[in-house]
């Protein structure tokens, strides 16, 4: 199993979710995060106090998928989240050693 971590632009959540559904991904977890990278932040001014905010709001998606599905998950996210402009985000893949569905106690791929 793989854990796929994708950092995307917030307004791309819906298209990505739908695209993933289409390829059979049945669950995912989303976290609101902030990031920086190539994409720079912006400047805010409050009564003369100027603050440069270098973090940009992003969403982090975490999806655990069976080994064979994983590459397609990466591709699908990559396609659905792209706008072509800077800050589109990254996708990382990690190995998962085990999975449990709390409700049933099922383990590994049946737990997904």
């Amino acid at each position: 199993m793989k854990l796929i971590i994708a950092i995307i632009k917030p307004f791309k959540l819906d298209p990505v979710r739908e695209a993933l559904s289409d390829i059979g991904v049945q669950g995912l977890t989303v976290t609101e995060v902030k990031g920086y990278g190539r994409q720079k932040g912006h400047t805010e001014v409050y009564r003369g106090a100027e603050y440069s905010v270098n973090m940009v709001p992003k969403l982090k998606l975490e999806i655990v998928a069976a080994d064979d599905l994983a590459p397609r998950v990466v591709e699908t996210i990559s396609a659905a989240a792209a706008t072509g402009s800077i800050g589109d985000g990254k996708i990382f893949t990690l190995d998962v050693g085990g999975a449990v569905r709390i409700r049933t106690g099922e383990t590994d791929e049946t737990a997904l």
Partner: protein
Amino acid sequence: MKPTLGLAGRALAFSAPLLFSLPAFAQEAAEAAAPVVDKGDVAWMMTATVLVMAMIVPGLALFYGGLVRTKNMLSVLTQIIAVASLAMLMWAIYGYTMAFGDGGNAFIAGFGKMFLSGITADSTAATFSDGFVIPEFVFISFQMTFSAITVALVIGGLVERIKFSAVMVFAVIWLTIVYYPIAHMVWATGGLIFEWGALDFAGGTVVHINAGVSALVGAIILGKRIGYQKEVMAPHSLTMTLVGTGLLWVGWFGFNAGSALEANGGAGLALINTFLATASAVLFWMLTERVLGHKSSLLGACSGAIAGLVAITPAAGNSGPMGAILLGLVAGILCCVFVMKIKAKLGIDESLDAFGIHAVGGIIGSILTAVTMLPSLGGPGGDDYAVGAQLIIQIQAVVVAIIWAAVGSAIAFTVAKVVTGLRVSEEVEREGLDLGEHGERAYNY
């Protein structure tokens, strides 16, 4: 019952436009006809009093609270409600008599009305019109709210680092040695500045210069917040600041038009001026932001509103509507330039710009009141109105207020420092005063 407040022989009526200022100390002169309590005046003055209350909590509390970081929100709210409550009790106990009691000298009144003794529901206070009085309890309440908001305004310079106990100690001393004397000097017959003939319709010197200067002194004595000009200290909720601004604007009609002490055309003049100066300052602050190379912002609009309100305060009944627009324009531009360009260079963490808006705006308003009086600008000055002479008086009044406030607040903060230590520990400052000082958090979303 004879009136307990009078006007020292001045004839102040709107049909004969004249200098305006709050009514002064008891005159003993018998009056031809028994003065009457007009229920319309009572209705308006009670309403005005309630409106000023709305300026403090929730108004000012939200305005200031929105500007600090989340972790210090409750500390600001708590300091404001507590210090206002304290000021109310003190006013009833000895503040009122020090400012408006019988007797006394050019600096304070006598102590005969301590604990409001001798005052009943039938006691009355004079208005600006011969023959009209209002219940003294209403006058006391109205003035009580002024003392409460003034001390609360000072907190703007102290937030995010001052101990709660220090605020309370400071307030006791400051009200006693700064506010009550200045209120007496400016607004009571026999008061030093009142007798000069200075114009301060609703408190440009007593409230705004006073509070703004004291906030600056407090900010200097306290020192900067950890991380000032390094860390991001963006307002945690400009929404709350807007709510506060709205309530301040709304309540300020009580503050200004209530200072007419009657429901008449003069109050109506103060009312419309309070609309126009504020609207003007909102727009000109936002324009100034543009000229300075920034976007027009909501915080700019809110700051402009306060600047306009402050500037029109001494002039509310001493200006025509077009004078009010001009006053708003000047205050909007100058206060904006001050807080956006000049303040940063001073290196003082006068955190929420109590000085930059209330003192600067108050000085502008107090001095320009001499100008807005001009009949040629639509002002209520008479044909023989001498603008030059008045200008000098206004400047004198401003200088006295600045010095008195600076010295008095330095004393008050120093005593507070000795008694309480003044500033929270670095750990509490970092974690936030809400948890450190009050054991609560503002939000649990």
